[in-house]
Each structure stands twice: as structure tokens, then as C-alpha cells.
């Protein structure tokens, strides 16, 4: 409990050698924190002009009965493909107001992409595997990234001023926005994780996977 309630320290810094790369490290209780979304809004006109075009399409895979990645950050208007790498079917849905949809995924059959056109947080579930849980963070930000399993994230951005927004699905309270100038001095963000949260992974034991009464 103590570890789970403890403060999560986030540190982000820029490398002075390469002013165009903004890098960061996310940690929770001394452990790397994956799936922290970092959204950058360019405040200077020149940087905004250099913002990359909309991504053509993104992928959110169904692998070992889990959404991979667990958190996907996309810019508004991005089509997302939901491939199914498992040998079984998945039935992905969302009740979120930012995007309500359901998509039926046969094994190995590439489905039509789903267009995420409104900013917001889209919680994903699977009607066949109740434990499956994933998130799509849809944003109008100019640059988007998410921390990997080592808690690292990096974004190539032009020098300038940016407003940084952080989001994590299990943050008790999302950290405040920060304005930084790239290149910038070291900055740190702290947040608390919720005491308990779903991981979206299958139960550790086959015993729990083998019974379903709908309750």
C-alpha cells in the first residue's frame, strides 16, 4: 500500500547537445512508469508551423488477450487499425463519449480502421475477455508521445516554447500543465497513482480465466 500510495516523481529534461530532442523519464516509486502520455502544444508560431502532419494511421494490436500498447496517444482525426494477432476472436468496444464503437475482430483478418476524430479519452474493452482494458488518448496537441516500459519518452521538436500536458490512466490526479522552453532546464512532475487499478492483463492463473457467469 505504502508503495502504491507514494508519490510518483516524474523527471523530464532536455539534452543540450541536441536541442531538437525533448526526452523524459517517468517513474513510480523508483520504478519506471510506462504509458505516461506527454502532449506538447507549441506556443510559438514558428514551432507550430513545423508541427508534423496528421499521422496516416496507427495500430493497436490484440496480443495474448491484451491491448498492445495499453495506452495509445493519437492526434484527432487519426484512423486506428485494430489487428488481431491472437488465434481467437476479440470483440472490441468503447462506451466513451469521445468515440463509441464496436468492432469484431477475427483472427488474422485485418478490419477497417476506426477514425478517432474528437479529442478525449477512449476506454476500450473486449466483450469476450472482460479483463481486457486499453486506452486511446485522442488530442489536438502538436506533438504526442508516451513513455515505454523503461519509463522513457522522447519527442523531436523545434526549439521554442511548449505547453506540456501529462496523462496517465491510473493517476489519482493528473499533474498540472507546464510551460517549457526547448532547450530547457531539468523539470520534474509528480503525481500519485490510484491505490488499485486494472492492468488490462489476463488473470495470472488459468483458474480465474476458466469460469465466466457474466457476473
Amino acid at each position, binding site marked *: 500500500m505504502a508503495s502504491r500510495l507514494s508519490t510518483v516523481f516524474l523527471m523530464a529534461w532536455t539534452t543540450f547537445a541536441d536541442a531538437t530532442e525533448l526526452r523524459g523519464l517517468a517513474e513510480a516509486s523508483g520504478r519506471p512508469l510506462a504509458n505516461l502520455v506527454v502532449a506538447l502544444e507549441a506556443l510559438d508560431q514558428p514551432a507550430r508551423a513545423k508541427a508534423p502532419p496528421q499521422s496516416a494511421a496507427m495500430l493497436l494490436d490484440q496480443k495474448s488477450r491484451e491491448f498492445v500498447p495499453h495506452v495509445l496517444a493519437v492526434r484527432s482525426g487519426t484512423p486506428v487499425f485494430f489487428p488481431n494477432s491472437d*488465434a*481467437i476472436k476479440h470483440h472490441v468496444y468503447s462506451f466513451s463519449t469521445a468515440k*463509441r464503437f464496436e468492432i469484431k475482430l477475427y483472427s488474422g483478418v485485418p478490419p477497417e480502421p476506426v477514425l478517432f476524430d474528437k479529442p478525449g479519452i477512449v*476506454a476500450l474493452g473486449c466483450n469476450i475477455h472482460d479483463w481486457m482494458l486499453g486506452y486511446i488518448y485522442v488530442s489536438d496537441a502538436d506533438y504526442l508521445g508516451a513513455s515505454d516500459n523503461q519509463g522513457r519518452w522522447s519527442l523531436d521538436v523545434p526549439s521554442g516554447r511548449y505547453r506540456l500536458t501529462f496523462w496517465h490512466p491510473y493517476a489519482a490526479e493528473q499533474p498540472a500543465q507546464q510551460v517549457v522552453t526547448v532547450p530547457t532546464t531539468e523539470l520534474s512532475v509528480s503525481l500519485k497513482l490510484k491505490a488499485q*487499478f*486494472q492492468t488490462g492483463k489476463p488473470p495470472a*492463473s*488459468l*483458474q*480465474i480465466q476458466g469460469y465466466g457467469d457474466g457476473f
Partner: protein
Amino acid sequence: MFEFIVSTLSPARSIPGRRQPIGFAGHRSLPAHRHVSAVLLIGSALLIQAKPSLCDEGQFPEFTWHGLLDLRYQHSDAAPGQLEQGLGKLREGGERDRWQINEAATTLQVRLDWDWMATATLKYAHRQSAPVDLTEAFLAYRPVGSAGWRLAGRLGMFFPPISLENVGTAWSSPYTLSSSSINAWVGEELRAFGGELRLDYQTEVGDRIGIFGAALANNDTAGLMLAWRGWSLHDFESTLNGRLRLPEGIGIPRLFPEQASTSQTFVEVDRRPGFYAGIAAERPQRYTLRAMYYDNNADPSGLSAGQYSWHTRFWSLGSKAELPWETTLISQAMIGRTTMGDLIGDLRAVDVGFWSASWLISRPLGEGRFSVRYERFGSDERDYLPQDRNGEHGQAWTVNYNLTFAQRHQVNFEFSSICSARPARLERGESIYQEETLWQVGYRLFF
């Protein structure tokens, strides 16, 4: 006077031609068959385990297998139990050691399309009356729903949603080997044969709140074991053709000569459907709450083929909470009454109030899981047969530590202690108060 009572109790309501089938005794006279079935079931379990249990041809139906093999060492120091037709609190009592194939079960799930799925669980269990038989078989309908509203339904034979502990393969518990007294009774005598509907609202953050209800049949003898044997601790679930032995030496054949020597667990005696209805709320990984009312709506004076109908109704409350230090607390409570026999004045032959409450605390410890459960139970009676004594009270502790390897191999160490007082034991020449213990080592394979 007894004869008068008996004659009013065993009225012409008994349906001619529906007497106890003679063949039923054959269930117990074929141990060799039972052995063969067990070996077959275990063999198929191992075969299935060797293959990938999931496959997708790209089309429906999609088949999924799961199963369980449960080997058990037990040392009991207890009064004669249910199988010995005693009033001890275990399924098998005595002061002895036992090695046994406790259970082998397999669940077949057939996904018929995106919304419909058929599920059936076949089980062998140690000294089960039908060697291999169904514990559950139902068709489930569960579409995605829209805007957070979800309607789901089940049709067939299934457990009422009472237990918050028996959430594993073939209704096993990840916390203990022996079920709590409430869940042991649910496994032994309760099953819905009918249809269940559930309407849920799911919020964006995943919280769910809903109502559910079912119309059911074939549950008219539920309550008999609670009245005549009382609460007990075991992990035996009755099956479709299940029969349970009645306690001996407490005058049942004398007071109720129409009663067959075994109770047929899932039978419709009076052709009156029963129901249950309740509410459920869940915040994933935080808490689950469930409250329901069950009423089998049986005619207390019904009798058919040696089986009385018992009017059994109860409230069931359950909560599961995830507490600090990765600790899970599961609390369940049940209170109700079961009534049987014709009305004389305002009393019936058997009218027993029953209640039980349990608290289970569980948390990971080292490489395994440690669970402790404490429970209290009791019953009282208000009927016109004081010589048929069905009151009792007691309490029990169960401590379990289990280790799971490679997702599928689970080793359990468990100790249970049950103290109870039941005046009916005097008739058997036993002391009213009994302290019983059970040590168990269990190996369970899940696939």
C-alpha cells in the same frame, strides 16, 4: 399422534406412479464404472492440456476448453459427515487419512456467434452419485450494448450469483479448498433451472450498477439439507442427477415415512416456478456488492416420488473489497427460512430459520496466497415436531496457503476447524457439541 401427523403430512398429494425409481440404487453399486469414468475424464484432461486449448478457424462456432483436476490428501478428526449419514460438519468425517481424486471437471465453451455462447461443465467427484454429470449447462446472451447500457441473459442450469469466492474453473475458489458454509450449501442444493436477465449500466470509468432476476424450476428440495443436517463445510457441488444421503438416527423415516432415503437435489415437485432478484454494483479492482432475494416458491405440503417440496426463501448479501496491502476482504451473509409439511394451526412439520455470515481475508504472501476465513452459522425452528430437532449454532475457521506454478499447477495447504452445537446429535448417542478439524493438502491442475 405421530401417525396422525404423518398421515396428514404424506397426503394424497403424492403422485401415483412417480415413486422412487428402483434404478437409483444402481448409482452406488457400480464403483468400477465410476473409476473408469474418472480415468477417462483425467485422461481427456491431460490430452486437452497437451494441445493448445484455443483455436480459431475464423468462423463460428469457436470452441474453448477449460478444466480442473483436483487430487487431495485429507486428515479429518470429526464426527460422521454427510456421506456417512451423520451430523458432522464435513462431507466425510471420522478420524482418518484419505488420498483421493477429489474432482475432475471440464468446461466446454462454445461461442455460437458474437453475442451467444453455450457453456457446459461436466464433473467427476469423489463419491458423486452419478459418476460423471453436469454441474452447469447454459446458453448465455451478452451483446455489447449501447451508450453504457448492457442487457445480458442466461438460459439453462446455472448457479444463482451468490458466491463471491467460487470464481474459478468449475466453480472452484482461488482462496480455499473448502467452501464457506453458505457457498457449500449453494453448491449442494441450489441451482437455477430457468432463465436469468441482467440489466447493467456501465459508466465511462468502468463502474457498473445493475439489476438481475431469474425465473427458476427444479429447486424444490433446496433447504432439506439445511434443516435436517445443518450448515457444513465442503467443496462438493451437486450435479444434474445428484442425490444426497440423509442423516441417520434422527427419526426421519419414522416421522416422514414418505421421504425417500436420498434427497434428489434438482427436482420439480409442485410445478410452481420460483424466482430470485437482486442488485449488483461493481467498481473494478475496488469493490463488488451484491444483494438478492431468492424464493423457490415451493408448496410446503407438496410431495412427489419420495421428495417433499421445501418452501425456501432467503436474503443473500455479498461484498468484495480490495483493501490496502493488496488485501482482499470478501464478506457474505445469508438469512432465510425453509418450511415443509402441512399446516396445523399456524405451524408446519418443519419450519427452520437459518443464517450464516463469513469473512474472508486474502493477500499474496511470498510466492503464494494466504487466506483466512471466519464464519458463524445457526438455525432455529418453530414447528410442531419438537422431536425433529433442527436447531444449531456454530463457527468455523479456515486457513489456506496456496502456491501456483506456471499458471496451472496449484498446491494448497489448508486447515479447517469447526465448532458446533446441534441437539439432534443426542439422538445418535453423540455429544451435542462437536469440535471437528480437517487438514488438507491439495494439488490442482488447471487447463
